């Protein structure tokens, strides 16, 4: 099972091709497809699949890239096709190629008008989006060979793929033109075998193209008539494993009362800390000035923010308990005069306590990295010092 999504973007074109749009294909093996697929990729298989899809869709020139040009040399459309493999039960190439080409046919890009130097891109509301110009629909068909070409299987499943001798992939459109052909696995094929395969491919491609056309028409009809379309309709009604529920009303009449109850029962919230000061967009600072709470004896010369005065006793008390015994003894000494050791911010200072307990002070950290518990502790220390 493959999920395909096409999106577009306006970009400057490639220097070597200033009048052509850019096509970008990306096939991803989702980890849900098979237990062996890690997010770190299965590089070999992935590269091979990506190459086949690219050759099939890009080199066959099924999409007209000239029509994707908006302003020659400056702005062209970049069409990006993302393929996600959801379930790996064999024959990823076929499924991916069908999904890819259908997505490209189904895609509508925003309408653009150029007046001299000005380019206007219309939103879907202003003007109907425009489909891509697709010349033909190449579709891959895979053949698995067993026992040196004696047995031939079309559309191999995963188990069959594992034991096959060789693989032949033919990409063909409904006009019986071969777009890509690839033989891998080291099997040697006789000429009429290849011709036979191409005939089978022609039949299969005709069937699949018809199916695609019908699906696209259904979708178009559905959209025009305003009916439902998209994934919502893809869930089968009759299956026992599927279940639908119509829009459900939720009674939110007494929500306010219930909320009130909860709020009154809840404990009062802890004090809100200082409002962050916004320096620039994306940079904020909470609190100013730091005190090393790691048993330091340096005094910070910067002041702490005034809002921290609101620190409640309860939380400060908890923070105290969190500190080790060492630091609590420091608090005692702090009651006396603080010892200014150095003004340097980077220096690491080791000070011996009067009680013969060696202490190390960390280099002063940036105020942003300071934790609230440390601040609370600092507050308490400062209060004690002030007292």
């Amino acid at each position, binding site marked *: *099972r493959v*999920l395909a*999504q096409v*999106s577009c973007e306006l970009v400057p074109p490639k220097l070597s091709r200033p009048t052509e749009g850019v096509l970008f294909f990306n096939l*991803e093996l*989702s*980890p*849900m*497809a*098979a*237990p062996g697929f890690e*997010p770190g990729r299965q590089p070999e298989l992935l590269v091979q699949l990506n190459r086949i899809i690219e050759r099939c869709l890009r080199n066959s020139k099924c999409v007209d890239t000239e029509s994707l040009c908006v302003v020659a040399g400056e702005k062209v459309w970049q069409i*990006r096709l*993302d393929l*996600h493999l*959801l*379930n*790996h*039960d064999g024959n990823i190439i076929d499924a991916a190629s069908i999904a890819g080409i259908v997505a490209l046919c189904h895609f509508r890009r925003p309408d653009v008008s150029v007046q001299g130097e000005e380019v206007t891109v219309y939103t879907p509301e202003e003007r109907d989006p425009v489909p891509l110009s697709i010349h033909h629909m190449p579709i891959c068909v895979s053949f698995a060979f067993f026992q040196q070409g004696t047995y031939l299987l079309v559309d191999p499943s995963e188990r069959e793929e594992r034991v096959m001798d060789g693989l032949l992939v033919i990409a063909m459109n409904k006009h019986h033109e071969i777009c890509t052909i690839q033989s891998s696995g080291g099997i040697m094929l006789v000429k009429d075998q290849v011709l036979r395969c191409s005939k089978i491919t022609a039949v299969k491609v005709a069937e699949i193209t018809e199916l695609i056309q019908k699906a696209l028409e259904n979708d178009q009809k559905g959209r025009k008539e305003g009916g439902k379309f*998209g*994934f*919502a309709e893809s*869930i*089968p009604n009759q*299956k*026992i*494993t*599927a*279940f*639908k*529920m*119509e*829009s*459900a*009303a*939720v*009674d*939110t*009449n007494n*929500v*306010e009362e*219930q*909320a*009130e109850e*909860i*709020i009154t029962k809840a404990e009062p*919230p802890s004090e809100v800390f200082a409002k962050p000061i916004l320096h620039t967009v994306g940079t904020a600072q909470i609190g100013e000035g730091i005190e090393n709470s790691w048993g330091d004896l340096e005094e910070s010369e910067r002041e702490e923010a005034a809002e921290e005065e609101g620190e409640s006793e309860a939380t400060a008390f908890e923070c105290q308990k969190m500190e080790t015994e060492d630091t609590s003894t420091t608090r005692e000494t702090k009651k006396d005069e603080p010892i200014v050791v150095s003004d340097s911010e980077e220096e690491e200072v080791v000070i011996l306590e009067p009680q013969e307990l060696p202490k190390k002070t960390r280099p002063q950290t940036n105020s942003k990295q300071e934790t609230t518990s440390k601040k609370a502790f600092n507050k308490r220390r400062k209060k004690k010092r002030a007292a």
Partner: protein
Amino acid sequence: MMAAKEEDKMAVAGDGCCLRPFSCEQGLLSRPDGSAAFLQGDTSVLAGLYGPAEVKGSKELPDRAALEVLLRPKVGLPGVVERSREQLLRQTCEAVVLGALHPRTAITLVLQVMNDAGSLLSCCLNAACMGLLDAGLPLSSLFCGVTCALDANGAIVLDPTTRQEQEARAVLTFAIDSAERKVLMATTKGSCSVEEMQQCLAAAQRAADTIFQFYRDSVRRRYSKS
């Protein structure tokens, strides 16, 4: 009072009192141990689950299963938003999965966004829960995700569409468990007051009743013989 309630029921989907139509399909993928596709209106997410399975040495946990969540967006490579959502989902799932029954194994949950039309995170949560059910992993309770949007007037909109989310002042998502309707995870985007958050939470708990009934009905249908 009754008349007012009737009108609410007929309100347009996405209105304060309505959840969008849900549908869910289980077991739709053949390879994963458990899979589920969950649709909320136009938002759809596909969940695939493998587990309990062999785990790489570095990720092994000696006493419980190691749960990994991968969220894949539809276009482009996964970015920071996906990573943060993966963490939220992982923590919610870890709270309900009885990992202690399967130590030294790995449970991998892969979510693929198929369509995003609002309330994506809650759709992911619902798909994850249905996937866990389909895989048959031991759970202590089910969970569901509900998104509320607070518009400029302070009115609560449940299960908002993309447009409603963009116009809202705040968007809150809650993961609610099925045993006692407690909150497993809460995340907010935008600003709202404490009272408003409690109101949204109460509304989400009401909506959770409907969603759990939906889970029950869909599982009942699946295991019915008829």
